[in-house]
């Protein structure tokens, strides 16, 4: 079980929660379960969400494991110059 923090706008879609508990071993599973539990999040996940694991931002590595006790933070996927 990992605790996932959602950024403001995402929290609103997940029923006003800023933190959710999910049983997931990697980013892929996290996204799948989030979409199951909060269908409103699915289009956003499709569009792209980044996951910060202990401060390091992952945009595409869905195979990245979620270590127990790690801080998991969902962020919008950003544009750069």
């Amino acid at each position, binding site marked *: 079980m990992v605790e996932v*923090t959602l*950024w*403001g*706008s995402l929290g*609103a879609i997940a029923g006003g929660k800023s933190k959710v508990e999910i049983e997931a071993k990697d980013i892929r599973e996290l996204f799948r379960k989030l979409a199951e539990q909060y269908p409103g999040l699915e289009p956003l996940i499709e*569009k792209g969400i980044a996951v*910060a694991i*202990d*401060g*390091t*931002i*992952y*945009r*595409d*590595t869905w*195979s*990245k494991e979620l270590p127990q006790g790690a*801080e998991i*933070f969902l*962020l*919008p996927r*950003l*544009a*750069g*110059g």
Partner: protein
Amino acid sequence: MNFDPRYSGRSFTSVGTRPIRPDGVDKVTGRARYGADFNMAGQLVGRVLRSPHAHAKIRKIDTSKAEKLAGVKAVITAADLPDLTDGDAAMYDILDNCMARTKALYDGHAVAAVAAVDARTAKQALKLIEVDYEVLPHVTDVDEAMKHTAPLLNDAIFTEGLEEKPVKPSNVTKRTQFGHGDIHEGFGQADFVVERSFKTEQTHQGYIEPHACVANVSSDGTADLWVCTQGHFVYRQHCAQLLGMEASKLRVTSSEIGGGFGGKTHVWAEPVALALSRKAGRPVKLVMTRDEVFRASGPTSATSIDVRIGARKDGTITAAEATLRYSCGPYAGMWAEIGAMTAFACYKLENVKTVGYEVLVNRPKTAAYRAPSAPMAAFAVESAVDELAKEIGMDPVDFRIRNAAQEGTRSSYGPVYGPIGIGPTLEAVKSHPHMKAPLGKNQGRGMACGFWFNFGGQTCTDLNIGMDGSVSLAVGTVDVGGSRASLSLVAAEELGIAYEHVKAVVADTSSLGYNDMTDGSRGTFSSSMATISAARNAIKILRERAAQTWDIPVEDVVWEKGHAIAKGEKYGNLAALSLREIAAASGKTGGPIAGHSELVADGAGVSFATHICDIEVDPETGSTRVLRYTVVQDAGKAVHPTYVEGQYQGGAAQGIGWALNEEYIYGKDGRLQNSGFLDYRIPVCSDLPMIDTQILEIPNPNHPYGVRGVGETSIVPPLAAIANAVSNAVGVRMTHIPMSPPRILAALEAER
């Protein structure tokens, strides 16, 4: 992925040296080929007709007269680029931006295009196209556009991110919020509070090379596109999707690129060129004029930002709040959101809240510009931080050091930081001789900090070892400022050979797997990771071939300094085999030797910089002069330090231009008044001093060499650093960027 990206703390032979770049000679002799330097036999000239109105309904377009003009081979409108985006809103916006469908949404919006035998005929044909416009009221100012009375750009837009779904449409596409703690409580603890509102005007990336491409669509449905772009794979995806092609049928070759800074990250004219070529059955070259570049490509957001920061007498910030409104052009964006994330990223804050509003205006579609959205937010925040330090009576550097984020700090945008460089850049600035240099009359010194995330992303690299032992490295990230040199250094380092034996090229989309574009400071970070991985895969084969030659187990062969070495006493009689020797024998040992890598280079380390600048102000005219400028920034590891310095200096120069003179100026009619380099004033050589740099190297734990991105952060602090310097020079707090002489003089007069 077996590749281990973790930082290993190794020492380097090639990395950190400063060799001449592999594409250098072509660039100093005029032989390098950029977007407009390529031609095909039978090629036509493409030209685009653009709306002169800021906002207008397109009732009808009559192209019949243009079509009849001798020499015209194709005329297209939105009807020739049907909507194939299948509900993908972002792609639809790109399509509509390439060619207006029902409404022209800004001065310069493309409405039709022609392909003709020469430029003169194409120009004449444009004049023969009759567009029946119904001119609509327009709005170009970000604050005006938020008002309930403002003309609506798109009545299907209802603000997202509000607690209750709004009942009326609005120009605000989205509200976003970040932060933690309780700001009310935080402000309650504050002894001093600074509250101010700021505005920044819209700027353009200002690359010297206009957008240019040559498109050639064949009747068999395949196509070639030669184009200047920051991401040819992304351009291929966009173009293929918009034209209904299979991606693999479209080969995109990236030319040398004459600057991008974010402005060449999504398509503008390329789908139009392809559609023209498809219709005409001939190659079409489409090159934007400078006027078109300013009116219809690029710009960054104009912004309006409110900041409030509170601190205790001891200099601890207790609460920080910002509301950020960013213009997006006529299409939804996430620019305020990024501004809201970056605004307070430099600081350790218990109570912080930022709110962003994305605002539609009748201006060109906002594109990324070097650390997009961060410089404006930093301008507002760092100005207020300076003012707060002054009110408390603390030195601005000490005040920032006291509140700087560090490893373990929860960032204002959410996650907790790993090892970061804000503290070290501030310490370096504190002890820098620049801070102690004397100042004269009407001169002031300012400093400011900046943050940028840095990206990684999908990356793919091929490393092929020739029979002569030389190495060709094919990368898929466009080289915008010397990355082929950096990546050659990395390949040489990993293989243990000389830099001169490596030749890096940027491969076209048919020769290499998908790569994300060169954005988010990812070019060297990501492609070096893929290059290291590819080299290690090649080394594995080299070891196998040596083992085969010696007829010993591969486990007993190690790779050191460019040689296979048989490890262990029993192999004492086996002389080391060089890469060259193994390569020469490769035909007989199993064929060509190569290493490939396809990976997602995630874990780009966040980046911080602190800048110092000295400014002189002429109090009688409001004229400013930058006397001295110093950049201190964390690079993680500088692979080619000269090009790292170049990124620092270039970003600072762009920031100086933004701070002092650059701005989009719209008339009451909604038309852009300064669509050229004469009145869109980017810094010239005589405007600037030398720009000193100090590279700090705080290794990124998620890269084998510790590399972080370096390209973008340097544009973040200058706006605030200069505003702080002006304030210290003549005692006025400038809240409107650019701080052009009329604005400074007006502020001075108001003080008097």
